C-alpha cells in the first residue's frame, strides 16, 4: 500500500466505553493498545463517556498538549454525536473536518453482544479504517453567504395569498405574482365555500384587502415569473408583464400555482347543458335556484381510472355541498349521488355527509366495471345492493371531475429544477416529513399545485410554506457544509451523468465550455455525482477516492 498520508500527521484516538454499552461487550484495553500501534497515532485515551463534559474537555486539552492535528473518536453513531465532537475540535482550534468517527457501538458491541472476540476484532477494524482515513483528511471550509430577505410567490390563489400575508406580517418583502387579472384563483369561480356555507367573496375580499394594504406585499397581476437564476438566499426572478420585464432579488421562492378543473370531454355525454360539471353547476347556482327537480350526480369522472389513478380529494365534498344547497332551496328536489367511496373524511365533512342523508339526498354505490350510463332523460346504473340494473330519471346530470395540474406546471418545474409527478403535481421533498419543501433548498410548495386541497388546507399550507421559507429568510447569513462535491473542469467531458443523478439540482452544465459545475450552496454532499462520474472528475470533499481507498485497503489488510 502506497502511503499517501503526510508524515507530519499526528492523530489522537479517543475510545469511548459508553458506560457499559461498549465496555460491557468489547475488550477495551485491547482496543486502546491496538490503536497505539496504528500509523500516525500519537495519543490514545479511553473515556467512560467521551460525549460527557469531561470527555469533551479531554479532547480539547489533548489537542494542544499533544499537538494533535487529527482526531478520531471510536464510540456511537455520527448521526447523533458527530456535530458535538466536531465542535469540540473547532473550539480547540482544529479545523472540524479533520475529525473522523468509528461507530463501535451500533456496529460492534450492540450487534455482537454475545461474541466478545469477534466484536472486538470488528471494532479494531473500524478504528483502523477511521485512522487510515483521518490521516488523509484535509481542512475544509464552510462558505458564508449573504442573502436576500425577500420572497417571490408564484400564484395568487388562496394558498399563495395566505403565504404572502404571513411573510408580509413577519416583515419580509413579498412579490406575489398572479397570471390572471385578479387574485383569488379558483375561489373566484365558486358559489359557496364549505363547510361554513358562506359566499367566497367574504374570504376573498378580506384576503385581498389585507394584502393590498400590507406595505410589504407587492402584487403583480397579469404577470408570470419567466425566468429564475441563482440559488437559496440569492435568487433573481424575472417577472414578465405584457412583454415588460422586472428583475427582483429574493432569498426564496414559493410555488403556489394552483390547479384547474378537468373538462370531461367525451365522458357520460358531457355537453355543458344538461350534462355539466360541478364548476358549471356552481356558476348556475350563483345566478339563482336551478329549475331541475331530478338530478343525478356522478363521482370519480376522469379520476381513479387508468388515465388518472389518483383520488382528487375534494370532489365528493363539492357534490355534497351542492346537493345540500339545492335541497335547501327546494326540499322536493330528488338528488341521487352515484359514487364509489364517499371521501368525506374528518369531522366537518362527515357531518355534511350525514346532513345530506338526513335531508334525503340518495347515495348509491357503483362498480367502475359497471359504470353508469347516461341516456336521454335518465341514468341507468347497476345497483350493487339490489343486484340489478336501475334507471333513474333526471333532467340534469352533474359530473364530479378532478382537479388537474396547471398547464404551465412542467415549465415552472424545469425553471426551478424541482420535480413534478406523473400527474403534473409538484413532488415535495418527502411525502410525510417534508410536505411543503422541495429537495432543493429555498423553494417551497403549497396548495393545489401540490395536490387537491380544501380551502382550510390551502390556507394552512400557505402559512406552512411561509413558515418553512421564514426559516431561511430569518437568517443573517447562510453557511454551506464543508462536505460538498467539486468537478474538475479540466477532465470533465460534459456527459451530464452527474446532472441526472443529483437530487438537489445542484449541478449546472455550461454548454459553451462543455463542462458541469457544482453549486456548492445547493450541494448536500450525497456523493451521487462522484460515484457516477466516468472520468473521476467529480469528487466529494471529505470522502475522496484516496480517503475511501485507504479505508478499504486497511479493512482488507486487517
Amino acid at each position, binding site marked *: 500500500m502506497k502511503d499517501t498520508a503526510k508524515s507530519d500527521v499526528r492523530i489522537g484516538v479517543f475510545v469511548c466505553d*459508553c458506560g457499559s454499552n461498549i465496555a460491557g461487550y468489547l475488550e477495551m484495553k485491547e482496543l486502546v493498545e491496538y490503536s497505539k500501534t496504528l500509523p500516525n497515532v500519537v495519543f490514545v485515551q479511553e473515556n467512560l463517556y467521551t460525549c460527557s463534559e469531561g470527555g469533551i474537555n479531554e479532547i480539547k486539552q489533548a489537542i494542544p498538549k499533544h499537538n494533535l492535528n487529527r482526531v478520531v473518536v471510536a464510540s456511537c453513531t455520527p448521526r447523533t454525536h458527530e456535530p458535538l465532537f466536531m465542535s469540540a475540535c473547532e473550539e480547540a482550534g482544529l479545523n472540524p473536518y479533520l475529525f473522523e468517527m468509528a461507530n463501535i457501538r451500533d456496529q460492534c458491541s450492540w450487534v455482537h453482544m454475545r461474541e466478545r472476540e469477534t466484536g472486538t476484532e470488528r471494532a479494531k477494524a473500524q478504528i483502523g479504517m477511521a485512522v487510515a482515513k483521518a490521516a488523509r483528511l484535509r481542512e475544509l471550509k464552510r462558505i458564508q453567504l449573504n442573502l436576500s430577505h425577500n420572497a417571490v410567490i408564484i400564484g395568487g390563489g388562496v394558498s399563495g395569498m395566505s403565504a404572502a400575508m404571513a411573510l408580509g406580517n*413577519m416583515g419580509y418583502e413579498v412579490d406575489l405574482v398572479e397570471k390572471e387579472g385578479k387574485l383569488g384563483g379558483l375561489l373566484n369561480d365558486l358559489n359557496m365555500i364549505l363547510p361554513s356555507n358562506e359566499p367566497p367573496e367574504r374570504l376573498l375580499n378580506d384576503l385581498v384587502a389585507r394584502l393590498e394594504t400590507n406595505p410589504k406585499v407587492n402584487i403583480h397581476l397579469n404577470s408570470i415569473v419567466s425566468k429564475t437564476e441563482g440559488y437559496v438566499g440569492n435568487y433573481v426572478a424575472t417577472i414578465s408583464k405584457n412583454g415588460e420585464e422586472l428583475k427582483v432579488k429574493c432569498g426564496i421562492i414559493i410555488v403556489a400555482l394552483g390547479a384547474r378543473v378537468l373538462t370531461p370531454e367525451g365522458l357520460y355525454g358531457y355537453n355543458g347543458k344538461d350534462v355539466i360539471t360541478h364548476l358549471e353547476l356552481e356558476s348556475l347556482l350563483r345566478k339563482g335556484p336551478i329549475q331541475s327537480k331530478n338530478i343525478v350526480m356522478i363521482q370519480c369522472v376522469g379520476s381513479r381510472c387508468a388515465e388518472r389513478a389518483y*383520488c382528487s380529494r375534494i370532489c365528493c365534498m363539492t357534490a355534497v355541498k351542492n346537493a345540500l344547497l339545492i335541497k335547501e332551496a327546494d326540499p322536493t328536489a330528488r338528488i341521487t349521488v352515484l359514487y364509489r367511496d364517499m371521501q368525506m*373524511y374528518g369531522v366537518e365533512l362527515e357531518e355534511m355527509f350525514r346532513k345530506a342523508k338526513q335531508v334525503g339526498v340518495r347515495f348509491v354505490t357503483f362498480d367502475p366495471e359497471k359504470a353508469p350510463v347516461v341516456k336521454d332523460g335518465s341514468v341507468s346504473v347497476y345497483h350493487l345492493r339490489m343486484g340489478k340494473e336501475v334507471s333513474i330519471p333526471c333532467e340534469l346530470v352533474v359530473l364530479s371531475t378532478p382537479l388537474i395540474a396547471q398547464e404551465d406546471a412542467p415549465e415552472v418545474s424545469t425553471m426551478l429544477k424541482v420535480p413534478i409527478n406523473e400527474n403534473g403535481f409538484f413532488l415535495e421533498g418527502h411525502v410525510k416529513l*417534508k410536505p411543503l419543501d422541495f429537495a432543493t433548498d429555498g423553494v417551497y410548495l403549497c396548495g393545489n399545485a401540490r395536490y387537491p386541497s380544501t380551502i382550510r*388546507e390551502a390556507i*394552512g399550507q400557505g*402559512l406552512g410554506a*411561509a*413558515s418553512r421559507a421564514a426559516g431561511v429568510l430569518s437568517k443573517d447569513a447562510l453557511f454551506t457544509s464543508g462536505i460538498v462535491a467539486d468537478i474538475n473542469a479540466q477532465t470533465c467531458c460534459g456527459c451530464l451523468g452527474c446532472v441526472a443523478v443529483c437530487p438537489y439540482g445542484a449541478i449546472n452544465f455550461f454548454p459553451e465550455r462543455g463542462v458541469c459545475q457544482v453549486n456548492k450552496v445547493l450541494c448536500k454532499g450525497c456523493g451521487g455525482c462522484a460515484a457516477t462520474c466516468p472520468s473521476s472528475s467529480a469528487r466529494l470533499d471529505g470522502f475522496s477516492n484516496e480517503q475511501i481507498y485507504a479505508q478499504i485497503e486497511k479493512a482488507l489488510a486487517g
Partner: protein
Amino acid sequence: MLDVGRHPKVNVLAYSEIREFSGQIGDFKVKVLKKARYVDPSRCTACGACAEKCPTKVPNEFNFGLDDRKAIYKDYAQGIPSVYTIDPNNCKVIQGGKCGVCAKVCQAKAVDYEQKDSEVELNVATVIVSTGYELFDATQIPEYGYGKLPNVISSLEMERLLSAGGPTKGHLTRPSTIRFEKRLKELPKLIKKAEKSEDPTEKNKLEEEAKWLEEQTHKHHTATKLGFIQCVGSRDFRFHKYCSSYCCMHSIKEAIIAREHESSTESFIFYMDLRTVGKGFEEYKVRGAKVSGLKYIRGRIAEIMQDEEYNPVVYYEDTEQRKVVGMSLDMVILANACSPSKGISQISTLLGIELDENGFVSTHPNKPLDTSVPGIFTCGCAQGPIDIPESVAQASSAAARAAEVVMTGGLALAV
C-alpha cells in the same frame, strides 16, 4: 425528533404539565410542573445499565403490555430527551423497600431517589396546542370482544407487533401465542412441584396443558389470515360520529407490511367507504390489492366470536354479495377511532380556549390554526383527526402564525 432534541433554540420540557396560565397575546405567563424522574438528566447518558439490572418487571405500556419493562425505563431507544426515568409506583426504594440496584450500577451517578417535582415559570408571546389524540377504547363495543378475545387487537398494538423494535421484533405472533409461550416457560417448574405431591392428577393436568400449548404455539405461530375492521368507534352514533381520516390508510399499510414479512399472509379489510384522499393514497390502495393481495370487503362486522383454538370468527353482511357471512381468522385488527386526548378539557380550561362538541380544539375553516384566544394556536390531532403529511404541514402553519406574533408583537393579528 432528533432535530428538535438537538436544536439550540428548542428547550424540551418532557414529562411536564402546565399548572397555571395567565396573560394575553405577546405576554403569556405559564407555570410548568416538571415531574420528578428520580434521574438527573444532566448526568444520565442513557447507557441502560440501570434498566438491565433493575429487578422489578412491570407491563410495558409502550408495547400495550405485550411485553415487560423495568421500574427504571425509557419508552423506546430513540426517545427524546434520552434519559431514563424511575416509575415511582413500582420502584422498591421509592415505595419504602430495599433495592438501590440502579444507583449502584449507574457509573454516571445519575440516580437520585430523593428528587422532587419542580416548577418552571415561562414568559412567552404565543402558545401552540399540539396535544394529539388518544386511541378510542374499543372495550366500549362489547360485540367486538376487544379485551376479552386475545387475538382481537387495536391498530397500535398491531403497529408494535410489526415493529422491528417491538415485543416480537416484527414477527406477527398472535397475542394468545405470546401468552402460551409465557405459560410454557412456567410449566416445567409447576410440574416439578406437582411431582412431589402424592396425587398425580395435578401433574397429569399440567402435562396435558403443556402438550396442548405446545401444539397450539406450533400450529398458530404466525398470524397469516388477518381481518381489519374499519370505523371502530368512528362514524358510529354511539361514540364518535365523525370520520377519523387516517385509519383506512393505516390498515392498508399494516396489511401490506404483514404481507412483506410473511408472503403467505392474507388480509381482508372490512370497510364502509375506503377513504384514500391523500397524495398517492388511492394508488397505494390499488397496489395493495394487486401486489399484496389485500381483499377489500364493503361491509360492517356485526359480531366477533372465538373458536376453541382462539381464532376470532367475524360475522358480517357482504353488501356486494348481499349475504351474511362468517369467516374464521387468525387475528383481527381494529381501526380504533381518533378520540380527543383526555387531558384536553383541563388544558382548554386553563388556557381558556374553546373545544368543539367532540372535544377537539375549535377552529374556523378560514383560520384553521387559530383557537378562540388570540395568540394561542393549534395543530395536528388536537384540532381533529388528521394524517401525518397534513399534520406536519399544519405544524409549520402554526409556527408561521406564532412567528407573526413574535416578530410583530402581535399587532398584525388584530385583524
